[in-house]
């Protein structure tokens, strides 16, 4: 065990605590008693070969799927029975592996959805949500596309818009599901920069990624899933050196 993960364990209350979460699809066990704790403000990496259950796990956290056994606690509260929109309102936001823009809306309008339904849902005075959306777009240099229909964006713009839309929900935990898939080197750096900046503002980030360089650069701690089970946990350097991880990825 490294010094860093020791710190996490001594923390009184992790932001996200997953205890023996199980998910089956028919006879197939996608998640098999997964335990995980993510600390407030942490940069957490989740890796694993295709079909290992990464996306299933974050679907269970965000509420897109319901886990069958175990518990998911977010800042001390059990959320595993809540519908997804309630979890978003409590501070869990996510981006999608395959971007899911609201295609009939412009980029700016895409951001208005979480602003109206999460951030300002109880505001009696009508706040200037458009200005707020514009601010978020400026912070990730997407402001020039504000009026563009979201079905006319390039891949990197789509990825950035997904992150912006997640940010507009004012999350405490942001789950980035392969936000860098299909991007070029420079674009990966740009998205990584955005995530680092978000983390500096205090947002906890779980990154799921196949691009190893990116996860290893970004994460303070990495967990590797294989066939629905956590096979290894540690700092990026220990993970890369781990024999189980190498076997899972290379099949050696």
């Amino acid at each position, binding site marked *: 065990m490294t010094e860093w993960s020791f710190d996490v364990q001594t923390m009184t209350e992790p932001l996200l605590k997953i205890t023996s979460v199980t998910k089956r699809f028919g006879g197939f066990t996608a998640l098999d008693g997964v335990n995980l704790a993510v600390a407030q403000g942490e940069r957490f990496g989740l890796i694993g070969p295709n079909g290992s259950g990464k996306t299933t796990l974050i679907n269970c956290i965000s509420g897109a799927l319901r886990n069958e056994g175990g518990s998911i606690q977010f800042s001390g509260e059990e959320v595993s029975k809540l519908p997804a*929109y309630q979890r978003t309102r409590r501070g869990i936001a996510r981006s999608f592996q395959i971007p899911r823009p609201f295609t009939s809306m412009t980029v700016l309008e895409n951001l208005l959805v979480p602003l109206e339904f999460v951030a300002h849902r109880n505001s009696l005075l009508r706040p200037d949500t458009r200005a707020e959306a514009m601010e978020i777009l400026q912070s990730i240099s997407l402001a020039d596309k504000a009026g563009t229909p979201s079905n006319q964006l390039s891949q990197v713009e789509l990825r950035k818009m997904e992150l912006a839309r997640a940010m507009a929900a004012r999350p405490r935990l942001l789950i980035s599901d392969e936000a860098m898939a299909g991007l070029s080197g420079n674009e990966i750096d740009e998205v990584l920069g955005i995530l680092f900046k978000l983390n500096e503002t205090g947002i906890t980030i779980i990154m799921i990624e196949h691009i190893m360089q990116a996860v290893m650069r970004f994460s303070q701690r990495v967990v590797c899933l294989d066939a629905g089970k956590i096979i290894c946990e540690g700092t990026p350097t220990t993970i890369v050196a781990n024999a189980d991880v190498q076997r899972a990825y290379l099949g050696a």
Partner: protein
Amino acid sequence: MKTNGYGFWIGSAVVLALACIAAATIKNEYYFFAAYIVVQFVVLATAWNILGGYAGYVNFGTSAFFGVGAYIAVMLIKWMNLPLGLQIVAAACVGGALGFAVGLLTLRLRGIFFSIATVAVTIILETAVINWRFVGGATGVQILRPPVMEPFDSYTKMLFVCAVILAIIAVAIARYIETSWIGRGLRAIRDNEEAAECTGVPTLKLKLAACAISGALMSAAGAPLAMYQSFVEPASAFNLTYSVSALAMPIIGGTSHWIGPVIGALLLGTVQQVVTVTISSELNVLVVGVLLVVFVVGAPQGIVGLFVKLREKIKGKNI
């Protein structure tokens, strides 16, 4: 395409005034008899569009709600002889409750599965009414019209003005939904339901609300049918052509803007009436089918979409 609030209400007042003036000056009652049907379709198409257009849930059950509205009116006439206004209000309440209940059962289904479930609702309700003696069963029931209220000189004219008021209310509600946060939530649901839920949209609640409002308006549109025909029978009150027309009109007019269903209903409804009189009443179903195919293939955004494209072209030339 933004219309400011005053413009809309002034427009509505003008439409209502014109309807009243027409009722006072035009003698031939047949025009009102035909116009009533067209205006009734404005209500049905607008109501359909709230769930089908904004949220993308294609409802084939318009005739279920319409028929329920008509039979609620029949029941109230037979029981207590309530006036028309109360019949409509009661029909709207029952339609809303039915929309909520049907929504709870069917809105977890998506796409074609939801549509099939709504067809089933129509068939279930029609079968129930056919087997219910009190409202006349399969043979239907005759209704005696009460004497016409002042200042109208004929019952048909009064029903026509009543339908115009209903249409204005329906369009105002649809317009409010479209321009508010509810409309944005429904659009998000149509574009991508998972993403909507994950950006904080309570998808089931919003769909239920849309289904209830839409159902209430459809039933309200059906309530005057009893008085209009002086006769109601299940096969015509629950006729599937209502479902088909209520779906075709917004698609032809354009589902993205509240004016779309209005244009579609006025256009298609009028064509149907003209065809019924000049050629045959069977042919008007064919007209709906052909126009629907033409628009789905040629102009999927409907007439509103064509208009927007044209305007963009003109703008492009000016620059």
